């Protein structure tokens, strides 16, 4: 079979694709920052003693986790402006990515928090530590290190979901591929290279996460 692969063309389009990769990575980084902080907030809110806090937050987490990121991005991009909230496409996308994955990271944090022995909470009470001190000085320092590898897996998942931002006009890696494909009518090279670039980042990243897991398991 004669595969119509043109090396010269493939090399020509690499710089454009790399520009897209940079945007993808930037969106992922902004998304990670949101997911890490918001996820922890969700996890702590779900443990709140007030049902008025824990129940609605629990519902939001379930809802966000059960609906497609693509539709959530549309929602942020097309609906929020109706209420006077307007960001550019990149920021909208990064926020959407962050909020979506916050629903996942909150479960990870929750597992970590539940892994802290009950006695630690009781000891904090016995030592007359306030709620804030109990969280920041006793529980979280024990909960978070254990869940870092699991969080790492979601970082990779976010990177892989970042191309969804192309659906709301962000010119990231996949969108660069789309543009090249529709401009030149050559789609094999751009889409193949897009796939290769994703593999080139995500495979080393997942090997790193696996190593981290092993190191933590030994400690």
């Amino acid at each position: 079979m004669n595969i119509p692969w043109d090396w010269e063309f493939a090399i020509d389009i690499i710089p454009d694709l790399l520009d897209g990769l940079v945007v993808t990575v930037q969106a992922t980084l902004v998304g990670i920052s949101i997911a890490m902080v918001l996820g922890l907030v969700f996890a702590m809110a779900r443990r709140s003693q007030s049902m008025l806090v824990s129940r609605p937050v629990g519902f939001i987490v379930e809802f966000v986790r059960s609906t497609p990121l693509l539709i959530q991005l549309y929602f942020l991009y097309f609906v929020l402006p109706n209420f006077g909230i307007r960001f550019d496409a990149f920021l909208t996308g990064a926020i959407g990515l962050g909020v979506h994955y916050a629903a996942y990271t909150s479960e990870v944090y929750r597992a970590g928090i539940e892994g802290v022995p009950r006695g630690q909470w009781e000891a904090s009470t016995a030592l007359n530590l306030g709620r804030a001190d109990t969280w920041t000085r006793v529980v979280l320092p024990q909960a978070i290190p254990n869940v870092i590898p699991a969080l790492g897996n979601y970082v990779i998942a976010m990177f892989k979901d970042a191309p969804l931002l192309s659906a709301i006009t962000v010119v990231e890696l996949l969108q660069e591929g789309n543009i090249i494909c529709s401009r030149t009518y050559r789609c094999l090279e751009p889409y193949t290279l897009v796939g290769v670039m994703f593999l080139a980042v995500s495979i080393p990243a997942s090997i790193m996460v696996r190593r981290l897991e092993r190191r933590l398991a030994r400690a």
Partner: protein
Amino acid sequence: MLDGDVIQSLVNGTWLTIRLTLVAVLLGTGMSILSGLASLSPWRGIRAVNRVYVDFFRGTSAIVQLFWIFFALPLVGISLSAFAAGVVTLGLNMGSYGSEVVRGAILAVPKGQMEAAVSLNLSTMQRMRHVIFPQAIVAMLPPYGNLLIELLKATALVSLITLSDLAFEAQKLRELGVASTTVLFSTILVIYFVLALGITGLVRLAERFFSRGLDIRRTVRRPTP
């Protein structure tokens, strides 16, 4: 708020999303079992091929796979309809994650079970069918349920390759301007959420069904804090 035509479009879209999910689940489940068993194979070659499959599909995102299969594969002579491309992508993608679920559940069956089956002179097929699988399936179901929800969510991607699923109808109706975007997208989100709840319910039923008669406690879903 939503007139008849809009509701009709949403119903059509929902139906396509459901159909696509069902067909992709069949492929995805088959691939999960196949790949899970392959990862436990005594032959190195089979394990290596399986490794490539799993790493490839887990290393790239479903949307990139979908675009590659739909837009790039025809150039090397393999043309799939949008529906077929969706099924293939989503099914293979689910299989790459399900592989680990099947493998883990099989390994979790106590070793004595396998030894007992061997000592009873059961063939490899019989050992799997009558001894290992019925026990492993109970451990598989909760993570399998999560995979089904991930699959349902991923079906929204096919709207980007012209298939008129729920996400596609939403975009179409928005462009036509026939309904307020707020109502429209909220409705769509709720439909997906309800479908996901349906999946969760079905998986719970399946769990109850398969754990009947087994001498194991039902898997605890959520430890109470």
